[in-house]
């Protein structure tokens, strides 16, 4: 790794001051499971690494306030997996988080970090999108909330401006019943990055949402308002028609993990399966 300075600010204000001072020469550090790899590979060459883990306002916490469950920026995936509220309300997020790396990775990796790294294949992105997550952002200029589906701009790019720090990811508690499933395809059963990943939510209202990862420059979401997908009585042919239309928004590429053709085919196969699963889970809810 090339040399850099290290700072561990104790407050957000200190963090902002450092960020504004250093500009693009600074790199934020939470869990480090992506950042340290970048430092080692020299794809990241900051002058300063700003560790957010000691910022008092960002201490790890999962809390419920009104219609929102808030996960602070330094909350690690392992703690999310242990949380009963997340398990009860956002089971597909748990399913996805459990696939991120290994126990060792999940003990350090943060949900926020997974999102800010903005890999198109980030496993937690599809369920977060489908659950309607929003991102809390703060800077010296003030705070704002960004819906996750507007947060990603492209591979490795988010809407974050210089001087901004993500403070939390908030998940809206659903008013109605729903069935949710996370699914993905990998090259081996062991720890792996996704060839494709997706989350399917079927709501009692008849609306179906799909969010996809690793099949485009950003994770994205599509919605079926027709009710066809959610209808257990609707035929496979009709459902496939709707799915194919929704899937035109996907733009998978060929890379070392899989070819475009395979990804396209798996989108349909896995969407069908996740849909069936979500319909069952809705019925059981």
């Amino acid at each position, binding site marked *: 790794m090339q040399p850099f300075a290290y700072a561990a600010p104790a407050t957000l204000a200190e963090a902002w001051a450092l960020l504004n001072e250093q500009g693009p020469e600074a790199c934020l550090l939470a869990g480090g499971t992506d950042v340290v790899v970048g430092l080692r590979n020299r794809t990241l060459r900051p002058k300063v690494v700003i560790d957010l883990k000691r910022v008092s306002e960002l201490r790890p916490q999962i809390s419920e306030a009104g219609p929102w469950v808030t996960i602070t920026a330094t909350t690690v995936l392992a703690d999310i997996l242990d949380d009963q509220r997340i398990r009860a309300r956002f089971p597909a997020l748990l399913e996805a988080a459990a696939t991120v790396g290994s126990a060792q990775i999940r003990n350090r990796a943060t949900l926020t970090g997974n999102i800010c790294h903005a890999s198109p294949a980030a496993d937690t992105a599809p369920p977060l999108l489908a659950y309607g997550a929003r991102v809390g952002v703060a800077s010296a200029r003030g705070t704002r909330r960004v819906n996750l589906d507007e947060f990603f701009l492209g591979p490795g790019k988010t809407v974050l401006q210089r001087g901004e720090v993500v403070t939390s990811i908030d998940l809206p508690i659903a008013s109605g019943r729903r069935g949710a499933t996370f699914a993905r395809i990998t*090259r081996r059963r*062991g720890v*792996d990055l996704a*060839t494709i990943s997706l989350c399917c939510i079927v709501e009692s209202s008849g609306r179906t949402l799909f969010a996809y990862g690793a099949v485009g420059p950003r994770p994205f979401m599509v919605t079926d308002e027709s009710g066809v997908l959610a209808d257990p009585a609707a035929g496979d042919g009709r459902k496939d028609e709707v799915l194919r239309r929704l899937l035109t928004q996907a733009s998978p590429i060929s890379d070392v993990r*899989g070819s475009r053709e395979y990804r396209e085919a798996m989108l349909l*196969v*896995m969407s069908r399966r996740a849909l069936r699963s979500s319909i069952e889970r809705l019925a059981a809810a």
Partner: protein
Amino acid sequence: MSKNANDEIGTSQPRRGGLPRVTGRQQFVADISLEHMLHVKLVHVDCGHARIVSIDTTRAATMCGVTCVLTAADLPQPVPRFGPAHDDRPILAIGETKYHGQAVAAVAAESKEAAEAAAELVRVEYEELPGVFTVASALDPASPLVQEPELRPGDPLKHTNVLREMKFGWGDVDEAKADLVVENVYSFPMVTHFAIEPHAFIAAPEDGGVAVWTATQNPFQMQRIIARVLGLPLAKVRVRAPDPGGAFGGKQHPKYEPLVAFLALRTGRPVRLLLTLEETFQEVRRTSCEIRARTGFLADGTISFQDIQSDFLMGAYADIAERVIAKSNYLACGPYRVPNARIAVRALFSHTTPSTAFRGFGTPQVSWAHESQIDDAARRLGIDRVEIRLRNLARKGEAFVPGDTPADGDWAESVRKAALAIGWGKPLAAGRGRGLAVAIKASATTGASYSIVRLHWDGSATVLAGTSDMGQGARTVLAQVAAQELGIPFDWISVVMGDTATVPFDLQTSASRSTVFMGQAVARACHEINAQLEQMAAELGLDATVSVAELLHARFSEVRGEVIGVGSYRSEQQADHPLGGSPSFYEFSCTASEVEADEGTGEVLLVRHVTVADVGKALNPQHVEMQDEGAAVMGLGHTLMEHILLDDSGRIRNLGALDYRIPTTKDLPLEMHSIVVENADGPGPYGSKGAGEGGLMATAPAVASAVTEATGVVIRDLPLTPERVWRAIQESVK
């Protein structure tokens, strides 16, 4: 005198060296730090084949903390070349890089950070050149030559990328009658060893010569090569070989040891080079190939002829690949009775990582072809796939390669046991299939192992053996042999390995040879001791039933001493044999697998996986099981998920642990069984043979056959990734 009543042989003594490993005290090469040690970092270019236009080392050389920067120009001219079989590999790239990752310069500095930073400052100007990365381009006369013709004087093929054409065979293939001819082309990918310990090398000036620490399976060859390259006598080169953290053949032959030895002598200081995992991947791999097999069968499934043409893609340097190709293709027909055979194989150069020895030594590749062929015939003739094999398997004592070592095991027994264990013939659930395959490997054909055993005056003993304990538990097994032969407790025996200055010559640890070769050497050394003890008893007028302890006390109570025995086991060259000698034994293995295939995604789940190893005698049953199952898991790697992917410039695209995937705990079959056949019919002590490679030799054809039964599709390329299986299914429904 009375021997120990304990029966050491067949006891699962705990692994010697187990405790230091679980407590973190075991010293691997990278754990060794010498005083005033310099840290070395290599400089590479990111290209498969390139002409080096210039190397500017001035910024690096003048950086604080940097002691020296070495390029080919700084080495003795002509730059020394080395290799286990051909002296073709230069210490550093000369004017051209011939594979992605070949070092063009080396930096030695006071710290790791300084070495890393300085390596970045070395400016290499290079020009990408067209390269040879596939079999087709190696054979294309318009392709560039990988190896300079000057390196192959007198070789009629020196203006081609063919190192050698080998032909084996017997009978008359063209006259042979057949009711069915099966003709297919198979491929086996490039895969890499991925030992968890990346390569590491240390060298230091010592006693007017040089000392080298390297996790080599072959310290004596290393010593010989370093001595030659540096112009030193053998006695002035000391190779210490700490137990490797996994080797599998990748640590058998020299890589950067000559370079660090040079650096040590140049700087006058100890130097240490630790390769990253990525650099390690770039240095070692298995020989990949394309095999065209034409097999003739009679209507009852009997093999009438085998006509096999294969092309094996070595890398930029020959390393030991020619031997891999020769040995495995010699047995390309498999363990069967084949009346007519014609095997033609070409060993090809390419601008890729030099392929080297890798567990199985070519056998996984050839068995992929011969087993897939026999399955194809079975399906077409309507014969059960186990039955067809039983019909053709060579019987014990049969010379299945005419004029050579006959079949030395009851191979049908292994097949029957595997079939029983997998539930062959029982009803299958939907989406499932079973497969069974066999493989045969010729063990060491020549070689020599020496052992010295020292019986100390207190009745304990030290065994000196040059075998490398790279996980197979050689230390444990050799101690067991000595304990049994000397009749002293297992815990009173120490085993010293891995030091050319203190242990006698051993050819190498490979080919599952050590139980036989070194085991016999140790046993014979013990017999020599026992003979001396008998003599001693007679001279002292003691009864023959006196215990060893009493005898030693009687002899050595006044003036101390010890009883030393030397044993050896040699197998000499046979000039007229295509392999230089007959195999001392065969390693025969049988694998059976049951899979469940998801036709929608192409994912394959291994429901049950059985391996049967014919070992003669399991000296340490637990060690045999862990080796056999370990090999099975490794075999699942090249079967289901491992392949090195190259881009058009010969760069490895999936370099590193992120994108080169090997099996994890979650990739295990739901059930695994390892069965051992012990008929005491091997040449090693107590009728043992070698073990440890079998479990991965027939994995691919067994699993592929199961996938075929489950899905109806036949796949002839590896690995069987979900995408490949899915594609095959899509093609079949068109």
